[in-house]
């Protein structure tokens, strides 16, 4: 079983200045598996991706735990070693690709540069084919264009195309469908699933929308205030959600029932939570008078399905 694991994150702690933004996060991604991390804005899901990438953005620092990719410990690697992994082994599509492309160089120049720096050849037919799959028509015109000329949704799909061309073993996607309208969103989700089928790429996908996760995930991870709340096979988590927070996220997704979606009142805590009390308790519809003991200790709900709380209603 162990050789199947592509990425193993164990007891990860990330801090931002003095405050912990991610604590005790452990999960793994198998080869060819789609894992979705779901949670509200600010729950630490993007920080986990940045830690795997090794991007020390602002003052985010990994303060503990390990990240193992194919038997290699990433946290102890230097920048050069990490750079060698990026792109071809671990691909990344950022939330805002408009700012990750160079605005004053054409896409063709940037595609050529990226592909050649990873030892790949620029094959225009292959690029256009990839564009076509993502419904980017007039691909040859796009290659001659500049990022500032494109809409957010188009830039997003061009960034996904570039990441796909490198055929990484693991693709990290940070809220890549959030800026897209529903028709394009569905298309991108289906194309990513097709990409997994064709190339066997594992995908770690961060989103706030459980509807998107329901469509594509094999495994769903629910995060809140920097902690894992629930973890398990997609079908089990969606059919029998154990954690009150997961239930709240599910009813927030709009559907065709004719009812308005229900949002949780209040805001998630901006900084990570202490270990003693459950960070979700102030907003929890099931919270009782008795505080939790060991609020973040994972309990098994069923085979392959874990939650740190099962509600007390």
């Amino acid at each position, binding site marked *: 079983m162990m050789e199947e694991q592509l990425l193993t994150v164990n007891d990860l702690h990330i801090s931002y200045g003095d405050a912990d933004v991610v604590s005790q996060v452990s999960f793994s991604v198998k080869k060819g598996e789609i894992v979705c991390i779901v949670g509200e804005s600010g729950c630490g899901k993007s920080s986990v991706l940045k830690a795997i990438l090794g991007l020390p953005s602002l003052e985010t620092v990994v303060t503990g735990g390990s990240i193992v990719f194919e038997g290699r410990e990433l946290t102890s690697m230097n920048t050069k070693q990490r750079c060698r992994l990026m792109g071809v082994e671990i691909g990344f599509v950022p939330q805002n690709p408009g700012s990750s492309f160079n605005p004053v160089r054409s896409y063709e120049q940037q595609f050529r540069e990226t592909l050649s720096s990873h030892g790949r050849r620029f094959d225009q037919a292959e690029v256009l084919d990839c564009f076509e799959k993502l419904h980017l028509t007039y691909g040859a015109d796009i290659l001659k264009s500049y990022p500032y000329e494109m*809409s957010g949704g188009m830039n997003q799909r061009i960034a996904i195309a570039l990441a796909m061309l490198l055929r990484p073993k693991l693709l990290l996607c940070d809220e890549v469908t959030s800026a897209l309208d529903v028709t394009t969103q569905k298309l991108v989700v289906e194309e990513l699933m097709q990409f997994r089928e064709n190339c066997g790429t594992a995908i770690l996908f961060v989103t706030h929308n459980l509807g998107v996760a329901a469509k594509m995930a094999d495994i769903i991870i629910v995060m809140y205030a920097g902690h894992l709340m629930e973890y398990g096979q997609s079908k089990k988590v969606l059919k029998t959600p154990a954690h009150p927070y997961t239930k709240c996220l599910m009813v927030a997704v709009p559907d065709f029932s004719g009812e308005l979606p229900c949002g949780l009142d209040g805001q998630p805590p901006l900084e990570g939570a202490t270990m003693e009390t459950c960070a979700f308790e102030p907003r929890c519809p099931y919270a009782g008078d008795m505080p939790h003991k060991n609020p973040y200790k994972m309990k098994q709900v069923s085979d392959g399905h874990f939650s740190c709380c099962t509600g007390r209603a």
Partner: protein
Amino acid sequence: MVNIPLLQVSHAVRDYKRNGRQVRVLNDISLYLNAGETLGIVGESGSGKSTLLRHIACLDKLNSGSIFLRGQDYTGAKPRQICRDIQMVFQDAVASFDPRMTIRRSLCETLRLRDGKDNTDAQIKLLMSYVGLPEELLDRYPHQLSGGQCQRMALARAISIVPAILLCDEITSALDVSAQAQIVRLLAKLRTKLDLAIIFVSHDLALVSGLCDRIMVFHEGKCVEEGTARQIISTPQAEYTQRLLSSVLTV
């Protein structure tokens, strides 16, 4: 007596130039909105829905066609002439506030325009109770608020004028699903409390169907289907509406 709608748009046409080519962004659009009604406009990016709202709010000029408020033609008026009746809320709430002003100052300025005097503390308190935000947030700058909080402040500013019509241009698209649900619930509450007529523009048909009485589906500058929310959801006629319906990812 003939029933005159609160707002009426008739045969609106607007052309833009894109890359040297003439593009028809609004192609003969007509609509009406009754007092207290909520109209949803759905369609993908570039279908002309935001352009239409900008014209209703007099932020742009039509090539041809007319817009009426309570039967009066106001096509080509200045935004200031109609802002007491029609208010617009934008997708990017943070950018819609002056970054150098605290939220309190921005709200005070709007209230002063309405009343012509500086007697605003009690009114701001009332507004905050409407949108369900603590008053401490008033002394922050727009960038110091979360996306959802800032959008609530933008709604507070819009309703402070007590308009008859509220135009909402993709106001939840930049928010996560939880904040999005909070905003649509707030909108439903304000609608009842203030008897607002609302035009709610979004690309998410599921979201629109829960909030709106009537829905118009836009595609490439044209209205391809119009009906009650129930009709559009259960018996969509246009092929494009069916495609939009099947694109919604639910749990």
